[in-house]
């Protein structure tokens, strides 16, 4: 997948617009106003200064991209097929972290995730898949549950 400089400059412009949104819409609601007796700069000064840096640099980057000699030059973000693989892997990771750990717990979600992802990445040997899953779970269990006394997510088994 490729991104042209024009698209990239639009991305940086979007960041600049987000900065304006933060300063005018988000900050007034989420930064407590001072009582008036405070000396020096207010609580909102520092975040506003940070956003100003992002705003100025993103505008400058967008201008620099649109002014470049070859506007049609493209940046290769992913090689052929990589974008699909990246999306699937991200989806698997998100499902594992946000759904599986909370519902079925670490000890069931992890082998399913590991075997599934390693198989997807091309490993078809079952004994290697199972060995990898068992070894990783044993290492994590030993380090966290045994050594540090952490209870790993149990999901619906916690009751």
């Amino acid at each position: 997948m490729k991104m042209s400089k024009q698209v990239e400059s639009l991305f940086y412009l979007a960041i600049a617009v987000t900065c304006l949104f933060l300063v005018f819409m988000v900050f007034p609601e989420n930064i407590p106003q001072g009582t008036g007796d405070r000396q020096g700069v207010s609580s909102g000064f520092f975040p506003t200064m940070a956003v100003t840096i992002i705003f100025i640099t993103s505008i400058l980057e967008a201008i620099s991209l649109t002014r470049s000699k070859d506007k049609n030059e493209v940046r290769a973000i992913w090689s052929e097929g990589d974008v699909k693989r990246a999306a699937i892997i991200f989806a698997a990771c998100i499902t594992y972290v946000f759904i599986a750990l909370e519902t079925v717990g670490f000890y069931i979600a992890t082998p399913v995730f590991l075997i599934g992802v390693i198989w997807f990445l091309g490993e078809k040997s079952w004994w290697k898949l199972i060995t990898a899953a068992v070894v990783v779970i044993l290492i994590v269990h030993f380090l966290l549950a045994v050594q540090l006394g952490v209870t790993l997510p149990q999901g619906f088994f916690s009751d």
Partner: protein
Amino acid sequence: MLDAVLEAASLVAQPETIFFVFLGIIVGQILGVIPGLTATMVMALIMPITFAMPIWVGVPMLLGMLKGALFGGSLAAIFIKTPGTPAAMATILDGHPLAQQGKGRKAAKLALLSSTFGDVFGTLCLIFATGFLATIALKLGPPELLLIALSALIVLGTVSGKSPRLGLMSAGAGLLLASIGLDPVTGVSRLNFGITQLLSGIELIPMLIGLLTIPEIIRRMEQNQNNTSKTTVSFSEKPEDNKLHWWEIKKTIRTLFRSSAIGTAMGAIPGLGANIAAFIGYNQAATSSKHSQNFGKGEIEGVAATESANSSEGGANMIPLLALGIPGDTAVAVVASAFLLHGITVGPTVFVEAPVEIYAIFIALFIAGIFNFIVGQGLIPIATKVLQIKQRLLFPSVFIMAVAGTFGMRASLFDVGIMMLFGFIGYVMVKLDIPLIPLLIAFLIGPMVEKNLQRTSILIDANDSFLFLFQRPAFLILLVVFILMSYLVIRFQRKVST
């Protein structure tokens, strides 16, 4: 002071400290060999575990890992032309041609020797320079400290990545993230969006693990399935090709001193990193050597130059952290986080608040240097086997370690979610060539910047003008140093990139 040093020595002499430093070196060397598994990534993964250890065990273990990974990375560079860590990139230039000539063992032995030399050199400079700089730093006021922190951010933003604009944007994002949670002056919580877990700000460890490990894991997993190394490692049958002779060591001594000094200087400036130090060390060695025509074709001086420079940088980059509270790169940012985990805020006052711990860490660093040399001797045959590990087995497993490590900190799935969120942000940044280092460092020193900004603004109010700043000699000296440093750093970076 002597009492503190003796107490520190007794702490380091405990079997627990020795064992974990040794373990750190072994893990660092073995994992450093594997391309893609950087020292910082491994340190970030292991860091939550150090919470259960005393600080004089946890920090030397992390630094041992860094030292080990720097050497391990050079083995991959020499044998398969793929640097195990970014710092070993320059080692390919002469290390790999030597391996192609069947002299891989000689190159690896020289890399180990140079790495140990640079490491000891950097550690000595760390010990002697840090105390001196910290004494000076204690006498500085808020405007000077603000100037130092801003200079570090500007230099970091300018030299990290392809364009200064993107580096500064990343630093701005780090400052913005640092402002979530408590205002360091009033203690009022801001920008928490009603989420109780954000009342005191974003947790450092999930963010660190997310930014440092997840993008690299996803990047490695998305690549083509046949990603294992197919390069075979061969060794010469002739004994002289595998042995490192005394005359060869003698030939490189001047290079070792010069490159170690360069690496140390680079380490003391936040943001430059071991890879830049290695290229500058190599460049200087190539231009001043009698055999400059052999550089790039398998010249042992080239290996000595890059390895001593990157290893001395590894020790010296603790100087700005301990003296000023400013971490110079991501590996040191991880070390700073380990200090924070133990309730120690690093900076000039650390020598007053926790002298025994700091001296213990210094002593343990020397021991780590010696262990690195000993372990390295046995690693070379193992390294060739480790290089064959399939990435499709490795990186999903590393992802599970990252999730478990993050969860283990506070037994919180919210933290794991934060890790994933920053993993995604980091992935997008990596894809768009936006550097991560300024974001991380800015996040770490954000509270220090804000506190000193607030105090400076009060001083300006009290003096009715900012012109009083120019009546402060320390401020003026630092301003001149900052301008000169910025000029030199930008010049160096341009030279390196060409």
